[in-house]
């Protein structure tokens, strides 16, 4: 029954007034945005940022599914007699499903300065569809195989039209100690992934250079780079009151690669404009409050987003403390300011941003459910996805039980 409903939705027959035989209008802003939504940079950033965020400390494995609805709106033609759009142009929503997988295995533990060594694997698969709405929730089933077997699938993209997918992966090792922690790995795009973190003062740098073996670390090969201070716990580092919480202050360069067919004779410098941002966050104030502020540094310096979050106690697992068992929640509200971007068909302006997360922690596993709209990080990757609604399901398994 449910499968039949999904198939009906996928074929666009009836429930959502879709068109059973449709074709996108190539070359329009919506079509270009849909093409750009499924690009290698997104997969690479997905794998790298996922490895940093989720494959640290005592994680053994993580599976993470995102569905972002209405990333772009693409003009289509319809040639289907039973559709209300037969013989007409109409707008078809374009959705994206991303699957991230992370696995870690111990090599040794209990070395000097509480050090340990692990090997890890992280992959990211990004799929785009015009399946219309809830049918997108079936896509993660198809993404599981390339997520597990990304080195076999390689970096070959099924990159035809807008129903496309891209894959990237990282295989490497992580060393962790009280003094400093490293993650280093080889990426599917023949690149180098590196993360260096000093936990006590939160100092870190993290990034990926693609094709580093062939070209070296050039700005053109930068998939992304970020660095600064993240989660500096004032109680741990300076002996201040717990209520002060933790401070993050870091910068990030995220190239907004574009893959238009029509830019062969465009100046080289205009082909990739990194989005450079400065992030300031204070979390765990009075254990339950977070605030954040992001500024865009280049390409029209501006305040990019501000937000306030309220969450249950122990939401952020602070240095040297236990991850609490049971139910946890997080709600965030803020505003995002998007600059006008005619290249993307984006008018710009202020957008409300909301996010709600629920976490269930049980012994050695954790389930996380999220729903959000105008999430700043989604808009950094997909600036044309304003007012896009997204859902996320994440399952984590830990090396040790509570």
């Amino acid at each position, binding site marked *: 029954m449910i499968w039949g409903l999904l198939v009906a939705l996928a074929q666009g027959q009836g429930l959502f007034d879709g068109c059973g035989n449709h074709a996108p209008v190539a070359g329009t802003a919506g079509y270009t945005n849909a093409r750009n939504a499924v690009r290698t940079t997104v997969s690479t950033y997905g794998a790298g940022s996922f490895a940093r965020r989720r494959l640290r400390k005592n994680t053994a494995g993580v599976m993470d599914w995102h569905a972002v609805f209405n990333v772009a709106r693409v003009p289509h033609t319809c040639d289907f007699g039973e559709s209300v759009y037969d013989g007409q142009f109409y707008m078809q929503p374009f*959705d994206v499903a991303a699957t991230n997988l992370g696995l870690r295995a111990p090599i040794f533990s209990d070395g000097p300065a509480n050090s340990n060594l692990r090997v890890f694997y992280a992959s990211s698969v990004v799929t785009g569809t015009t399946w219309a709405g809830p049918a997108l929730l079936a896509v993660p089933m198809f993404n599981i195989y390339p997520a597990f077997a990304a080195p076999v699938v390689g970096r070959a993209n099924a990159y035809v039209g807008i129903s496309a997918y891209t894959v990237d992966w990282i295989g490497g090792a992580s060393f962790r100690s009280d003094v400093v922690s490293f993650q280093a790995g080889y990426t599917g795009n023949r690149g180098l992934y590196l993360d260096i973190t000093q936990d006590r003062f939160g100092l870190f740098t993290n990034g990926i250079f693609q094709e580093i073996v062939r070209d070296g670390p050039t700005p053109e090969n930068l998939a992304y780079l970020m660095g600064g201070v993240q989660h500096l716990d004032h109680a741990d580092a300076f002996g201040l009151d717990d209520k002060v919480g933790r401070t993050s202050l870091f910068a990030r360069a995220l190239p907004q690669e574009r893959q238009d067919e029509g830019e062969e004779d465009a100046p080289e410098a205009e082909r990739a404009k990194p989005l450079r941002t400065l992030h300031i966050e204070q979390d765990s104030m009075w254990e339950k409050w977070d605030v954040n502020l992001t500024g865009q540094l280049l*390409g029209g310096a501006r305040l990019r987003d501000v937000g306030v979050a309220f969450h249950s106690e122990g939401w952020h697992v602070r240095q040297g403390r236990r991850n609490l068992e049971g139910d946890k929640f997080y709600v965030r509200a803020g505003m995002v300011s998007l600059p006008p971007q005619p290249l993307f068909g984006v008018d710009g302006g202020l957008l409300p941003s909301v996010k709600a997360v629920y976490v269930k922690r049980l012994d050695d596993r954790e389930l996380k459910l999220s729903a959000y709209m105008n999430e700043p990080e989604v808009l950094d990757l997909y600036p044309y996805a304003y007012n896009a*609604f997204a859902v996320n399901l994440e399952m984590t398994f830990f090396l040790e039980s509570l």
Partner: protein
Amino acid sequence: MVLLVGCPRPLDPEQPCEEIAYAIGARTEECTGDGELGEARVQALLDGYECLDRAEVPEGQSESGGDDAFACALVLRDVACELVAEAGDDLDAWLSFSPSCRLALGRSGVADTGVP
């Protein structure tokens, strides 16, 4: 949930004209490196021209092209940088690159395009 995930919807009558404006803006930014100039040309076209409602796909045509509502935008999106420099701020010159442009939009009452 259904409202949030979005559904297929009719073409906004303004969409083909917005596509033409975005094509001019995008090509301007790509060829000149000047994003603000691209934005100014987008706004000038939207202010200075009116969109003709042409949601129907011409008979016998299954993909965009020919003389349909999007044909003009598709031509302008790929116009050579030499022609971009030649047309400059003259939007009528841009629209002369394809006969389909005059089928998609017409001049509104505003005479001044506002392009600096």
